[in-house]
């Protein structure tokens, strides 16, 4: 602390900055301490939940479990093979419906809606209300989508409990998310790219498809993968549109059961908690793997195009 003593020899300042400095350092330490504590609690909770499931569920998991079909019954015999397949089918159908719609809708809202000032207040109104609608829908509980799907797709359109009904309902659920993330990804593309492209004598669509969308791809993909995660994790919405059959779906009109639904079913209708936990463990592992995959690939993507 020799330096501290030296400072005392200097001309005293009008305010006691040294005391203030100490106070500021202390309050910083406190703030960071609290932040660290919150982070630690969050991580601890996460570890606790995931850890509990994994520790208790993994013993029930073995190759046989994964590859055998569920056999139904009070004690929940069998494995979970068909549920894995059903989940995959459902993800594919939902994404195929929702992704193109969502991405293109978002592109319209961002790129073409600029011209609303000259295009007339009608388009302007549509875009404005569409934006509000998307925001609202993003907060609607999934069971409401489920009921909507049940009434419209399962009953009215007579699609019954099927992958199609579930897919359509799932699409409604994730559409707002895809639209929002795509919108943000597209808006994040710098204006300079668009200007650079237009200045070459390209049409607006060429600019969007050739420069803007490729640049926004990481963000768009993240949105889509998020919705995939949502589909894998949802229960209520699919419970009322997919049905409960644990058989392997034959076609798009077949009923089926996703992994999440299987966990619910095992837990509420049987006593096979071990199998429920086992299925949960697999589910968690898949979701974690999915998130890791997003992270890694979007970082790779970003590296490739920023050249760092």
């Amino acid at each position, binding site marked *: 602390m020799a330096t501290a003593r030296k400072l005392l020899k200097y001309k005293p300042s009008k305010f006691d900055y040294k005391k203030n400095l100490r106070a500021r350092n202390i309050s910083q330490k406190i703030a960071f301490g609290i932040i660290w504590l919150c982070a630690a609690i969050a991580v601890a909770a996460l570890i606790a939940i995931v850890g509990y499931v994994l520790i208790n569920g993994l013993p029930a998991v073995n190759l046989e479990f994964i590859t055998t079909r569920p056999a139904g019954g009070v004690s929940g015999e069998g494995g979970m093979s068909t549920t894995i397949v059903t989940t995959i089918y459902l993800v594919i159908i939902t994404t195929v419906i929702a992704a193109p719609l969502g991405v293109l809708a978002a592109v319209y809202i961002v790129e073409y809606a*600029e*011209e609303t*000032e*000259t295009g007339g207040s009608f388009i302007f109104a549509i875009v404005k209300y569409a934006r509000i609608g998307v925001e609202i829908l993003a907060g609607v509980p999934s069971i409401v989508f489920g009921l909507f799907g049940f009434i419209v797709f399962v009953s009215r359109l007579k699609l019954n409990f099927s992958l199609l009904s579930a897919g359509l309902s799932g699409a409604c659920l994730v559409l707002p998310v895809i639209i929002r993330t795509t919108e943000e990804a597209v808006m994040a593309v*710098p204006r*300079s*790219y668009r*200007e*650079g*492209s*237009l*200045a*070459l*004598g*390209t*049409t607006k669509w*060429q600019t969007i498809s*050739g*420069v803007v969308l*490729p*640049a926004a791809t990481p963000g768009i993909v993240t949105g889509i993968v998020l919705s995939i995660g949502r589909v894998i994790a949802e229960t209520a919405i699919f419970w009322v549109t997919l049905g409960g059959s644990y058989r392997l779906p034959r076609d798009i009109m077949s009923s089926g059961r996703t992994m999440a639904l299987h966990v619910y079913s095992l837990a509420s209708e049987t006593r096979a908690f071990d199998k429920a936990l086992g299925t949960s463990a697999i589910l968690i592992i898949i979701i974690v793997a999915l998130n890791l995959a997003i992270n890694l690939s979007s970082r790779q993507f970003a590296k*490739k*195009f*920023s*050249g*760092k």
Partner: protein
Amino acid sequence: MENKTNGISKLSVEDYSLYYADFQALRDVTIELPANKITAIIGPSGCGKSTFLRSFNRMNDLIPSVHTEGKIELDAENIHNVDVVELRKRVGMVFQRPNPFPKSIYENIAFGPRAHGVRDKQILNQIVQTSLKQAVLWDEVKDSLNKSGLALSGGQQQRLCIARALAVEPEVILMDEPASALDPVATLKIEDLIQQLKEKYTIVIVTHNMQQAARASDFTLFFNMAEDRAGYLVESGNTIDIFTNPKEKLTEQYISGRFG
């Protein structure tokens, strides 16, 4: 005030005014820009130089509140009667901050010609090479065309953008302070490049750097901002005359740095 030049006029402006909604940004500009020469546009901040530059390739159309009066002609053809996409092919632009696309160097340059319908790989390769050579960048990147355009240095990126603009075979190249984001060495390289380009292209460059305008141009336009903040053309003439013996007092003051 007579603003005639010798030589053929590539671009001709007549009583051109531009408004952002009610605000007049440019007032009654009349000037002819000669072909195959470098025209520099100088003036204080806010005098409308960039706005004026962007009028030539109708980039101002992208802003909804803009409306204009008067006319601008390219080779005696009113640019508002030409399809804007075709206009922008003939009148290219290089921006202040280099803005290469997040693609490879090759793709950056091939993007334009592809959009205009060139599909043949051979021809595209040729175009990429020619453009990079014209932009004096070929030797530095010829072995790494697949590298991302964003991995280049600032000066290289700007030359890449110039190559990209050249790839669509424009007749006029507009440059908005092309070297202002670059270090002095890169700046001089760009100036040399511009001198080489003028043989084949007509170049219009906005610059706030007086020495650059004096070094690198043949013809100079001096814009000023009026009290109502509208930009207007004060004086135009051969660069050497403007910088050694300008006619207008305002020009003299601005060039000697005795403004305001």
